């Protein structure tokens, strides 16, 4: 009895110290995390002149939304291009996502449920893809795209985005299917469903959260992709945002407030998507790695 009380007391004392150091750590980490984001936003409210001051204005003396108006005003040349980049990004990311999910769903299901010869090898191949950087594929894909006449088209991006989108989607979805009890399909098959009906009528509806999560991942991955877009696209009307916003940057006369406004705008869709669907997002990621 005494031992327990003593233990409880020391525990409480110890825990207090730990909790405080935990809080301080979190506070510092929060500062580290948000400081760049806040500075991005503050800078985007400055005029070009106000940004180029030393010491910097920690809060702009004359905050302005001018940089944002410039980006979305289709009558100016900057606005026209930016809106075009934005639409290109939406288009490419959406199409990549749909393709990746449609192709990955049956494959992930098969990897989860069936034990066909070559399954292990093929699944390893899928997982291994995540190990290789885009650069390994870049030269041959560049040659392939040139041969297919796809350079400077969105087709080249969508096709190459599947190189990372598809394996990731298969892996994430397999994690979801693994967690759906196999007895449900067995019950359905006994109830008169074919194997495909059991999958389509019973399992598919249950894996909706997984499909949502996988879609977000594919979308964000495609939205943020840089290296293929940077290599395959040279025409402004085809560029996606990560490549397009480079035009604000030049070694000598970078328009920092404009650039910060553009990065801010570019980040909004993924951050909003993430915040709204956070639950699915986190679950999908950890499903495969943590066994409950």
């Amino acid at each position, binding site marked *: 009895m005494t031992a327990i009380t003593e233990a409880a007391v020391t525990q409480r004392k110890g825990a207090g110290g730990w909790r405080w150091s935990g809080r301080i750590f979190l506070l510092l980490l929060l500062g580290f*995390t948000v400081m760049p984001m806040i500075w*991005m936003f503050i800078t985007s409210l400055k005029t070009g002149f106000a940004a180029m001051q030393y010491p910097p204005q920690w809060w702009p003396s004359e905050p302005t939304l001018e940089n944002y108006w410039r980006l979305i005003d289709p009558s100016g040349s900057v606005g026209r291009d930016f809106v075009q980049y934005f639409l290109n990004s939406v288009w490419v990311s959406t199409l990549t996502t749909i393709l990746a999910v449609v192709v990955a769903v049956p494959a992930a299901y098969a990897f989860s449920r069936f034990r066909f010869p070559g399954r292990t090898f093929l699944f390893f191949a899928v997982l*291994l893809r995540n190990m290789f950087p885009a650069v390994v594929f870049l030269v041959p894909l560049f040659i392939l795209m040139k041969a297919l006449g796809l350079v400077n088209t969105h087709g080249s991006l969508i096709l190459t985005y599947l190189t990372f989108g598809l394996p990731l989607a298969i892996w994430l979805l397999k994690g979801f299917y693994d967690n759906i009890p196999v007895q449900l399909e067995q019950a359905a098959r006994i109830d008169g469903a074919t194997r495909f009906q059991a999958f389509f009528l019973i399992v598919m509806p249950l894996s909706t959260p997984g499909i949502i999560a996988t879609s977000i991942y594919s979308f964000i991955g495609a939205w943020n992709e840089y290296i293929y877009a940077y290599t395959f696209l040279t025409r402004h009307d085809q560029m996606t945002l990560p490549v397009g916003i480079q035009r604000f940057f030049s070694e000598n006369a970078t328009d*920092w407030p404009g650039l910060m406004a553009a990065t801010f705008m570019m980040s909004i869709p993924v951050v909003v998507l993430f915040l709204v669907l956070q639950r699915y997002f986190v679950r999908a990621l950890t499903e495969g*790695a943590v066994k409950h």
Partner: protein
Amino acid sequence: MSTVQGQAIFRDVPEPKRVGLRQKVWNSRFDYLYVAPAIIVMLIVIGYPIYYTIELSFFNTPASLALSAKQFNGLDNYVTILTSPIFWKVTWQTVVWTVVSTFFAFMIGLGAALALHREFAGRGVLRAILLIPWVVSAVAASYVWKWLYHSDFGAISAMLTQVGLVDKPINFIDNTSTSLYALIVVNVWKEFSFAMIMLMAGLQTVPDTLLRAAQVDGASPWQRFWHVTFPHLRGVSMVTLLLLAVQNFNSFIIPWIMTGGGPAGSSDIWITHIYQLAFGRQRWGVASAYAVILFIVMMVLGYFYVRALTKGDDARAAT
């Protein structure tokens, strides 16, 4: 009258029926229909490029990428790489970049996961905010940090000067001795929350009863962490470390946008180096040979990666 059908001890166990591979493949022909689309796409966009990279690595291909004019040159490309001093410099920088980034991302992530494990007001919001760097594009992160590091108007230098830690602005990224480490900070900022989220999920698998039992046994918080919590995190830590290491080894955007590998190659790592060789200097053969070497290194790492990810996979019931 009872009937004895079989008796485990006496009945001769018959020879197992051997089913030929061809028969097995035929029996599962419908299973292949499910994976066929994925496999076809992957063959085109992954299999073919890998094959082609290997082929190109043995050839000298003109800058114009006129493939008809490529010439077989055996292992020349590989010799060029391994005898070049730049190769070893870049390799060392890649190791530093990968190891240091992975270590700090993991440790910060672990600290955050532990601090966030206990329920408190605002925990969900805090977690969401900490995750934002991980979802924003590396391109955005690179530009923002490039601006923070700016040699004339950078906010970091300005802050340090105002606090009085330094007397004149520091040049973080245009400086051969600091550029690599300045980039590592950005990288850690970008991905520590990935480790955090993985480890938070891992922490949920630590049974409460075990922690309480340890508490009753008089274990201090540190002892509880070390003897109860940590062993439960081993599996997820392995996966997380591997994923981080692979991700870091494959980094391109942050160094490419922020420094382009410079100044004077001081922040050049493998991927940026290969990109520069291929698309900057059109040395397709050498770049491909680099990619093949990288491929081999990755296969070794990949073995552990796949093992960690598929653990327990075959225990799952099949229909």
